[in-house]
Structures are given as structure tokens and as C-alpha cells.
């Protein structure tokens, strides 16, 4: 019963902040609402019995990704662009189609029968780490995926650094221009 009350509070916060993202005009306020949504989702993960995913959600999403987004909104001063309309005529059709898909999915959900399994495993740090870094030959091999994700993150970082530079410095003409700036 208590879990249900906590869930309802967190769900109301999450949905309210997502509505705020949808309707608000200023990108900075929307990013703050997004951080609140992610924090409440992390609370729901903990409530469901996956505290490790909740902590990763707080660290990576609310801590890193949204801070980066906020920082870029501040650096680019994107809010000064007041000519951009919030919605246009296409938005009505998009909203209708999204509502239709949501209605279809909810019909399927209502007809499916599933419930929480009492034998489910609580995803704490020890269980998750044992499963992720099981390097034995008969293991599940998730550690290879961890390596692949590391490569993806590394290449994303290199791409971001190369993209965000003003000009490629190895080009001699551009190198001169860069010195001037």
C-alpha cells in the first residue's frame, strides 16, 4: 500500500514535468523539468527493486547528459530565438497519431495479463556486477558488451571534439584563420 502511494506521487511528478516540457516556451525551464522527471524515474526504479539502475540514471542522465544540455542552452543562448513558433499546423496531425498509437497500445496492455513475480531478483550492485563482469567461459558475455559500449562512448567523445572545433587545424589555410581568432 505504501509502495503504491510512493509510486503515485513519483508518477504524478514525472507526468507533470513531462507536460511542462511539452508546453513550456523556454528551453532552460524545460531542461530543469526534464531533470526532475529523471529523478522521479530513478525513484520509481528504486521502488521497483532496481536501485543500481536508479543510481546510474541519476549519475548519467540527470548528472551528465542534462547538465551538458543545460550548459549548451546557456552557451548558445538559444532562448533569444523568439521567432521560433512553439507549434504549427502539422502538430495537430502528430498529436492525433500519437494519441491513436497510445490508445491502441493501452488496449493491448489492458488485455494482457501479467503481474509481479515474487521470485524476482533485486538488482543491487553485487548482483548487477556479478552478471555484467562474469568473464568465465561459461558466462553470459556481457563484459564484451561493456567493452563495445566503451568504444561507442570513446568514438562519440572524439566525434564531438572534432565537430565542435571551429575549423580543422591540419588544413594550413584554416590554421592561420584560427590563430587570428
Amino acid at each position: 500500500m505504501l509502495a503504491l502511494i510512493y509510486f503515485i506521487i513519483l508518477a504524478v511528478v514525472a507526468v507533470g514535468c513531462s507536460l511542462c516540457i511539452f508546453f513550456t516556451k523556454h528551453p532552460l525551464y524545460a531542461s530543469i523539468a526534464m531533470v526532475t522527471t529523471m529523478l522521479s524515474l530513478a525513484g520509481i526504479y528504486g521502488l521497483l527493486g532496481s536501485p543500481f539502475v536508479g543510481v546510474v540514471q541519476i549519475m548519467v542522465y540527470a548528472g551528465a547528459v542534462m547538465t551538458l544540455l543545460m550548459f549548451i542552452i546557456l552557451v548558445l543562448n538559444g532562448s533569444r530565438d523568439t521567432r521560433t513558433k512553439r507549434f504549427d499546423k502539422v502538430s495537430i496531425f502528430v498529436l492525433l497519431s500519437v494519441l491513436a498509437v497510445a490508445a491502441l497500445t493501452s488496449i493491448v496492455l489492458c488485455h494482457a495479463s501479467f503481474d509481479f513475480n515474487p521470485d524476482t531478483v533485486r538488482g543491487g550492485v553485487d548482483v548487477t556486477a556479478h552478471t555484467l563482469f562474469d568473464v568465465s567461459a561459461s558466462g553470459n558475455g556481457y563484459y564484451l558488451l561493456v567493452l563495445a559500449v566503451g568504444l561507442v562512448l570513446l568514438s562519440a567523445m572524439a566525434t564531438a571534439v572534432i565537430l565542435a572545433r571551429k575549423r580543422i587545424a591540419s588544413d594550413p589555410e584554416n590554421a592561420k584563420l584560427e590563430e587570428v581568432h
Partner: protein
Amino acid sequence: MQAIYVQVLALILMSLGIATALCRRNVFFVLMGVELALNAVNLSIIGFSKTFAEVASVTGQIIPLFTIAVAAAEACVGLAIIILIFRNQDSADVDNYSNMRG
């Protein structure tokens, strides 16, 4: 508390995320809508993983970790591209980004 409540919440968040990404014209809102939809998928996976026992439930709690990592990479590259385009076009409107000329 029943398992379907989590799925309904995930469905609402997913719909709001897709609606934000497709309706709004500001590029920052498009990115945030995509992030919201990814979060809803994570929530749905964890909600379903709790309906399984033993090994399957642990698997369901590990997949969101990879989703989060890929979403972080996506946000990193996406924001770098936004910085580049914003310098050229000086606008946050995605309609202005329809031509790919640098």
C-alpha cells in the same frame, strides 16, 4: 501495486516524448523529447523484468544500462551537431535546418 501501472506510466511518458520530439519546432525540445522516450523505454523494460524470476529478471535490469550509455553518446554527438548548425544558421528552429549546406 500492480505491474500494469508501470507500463501505463511508461506509455504516457513515451507518448509525451514522441509528441514533444515531433510537434515542437525548437531543436532543444526535439532532443529532450527523444531523451524522454528513451527513458520511458527503460522504465518499461524494468517493469517487465520484474514479472520474471531469477536470471531473466537480472537480464532485464542490465539492458537499461546499455540503453543509458548509448543515449549518453547520442546526446553528446547531437549537441555537438547543434552547436555547429547554430553557428551557421543562428536559429534554433528545426525548419531552418532543412538544407544540409554547410
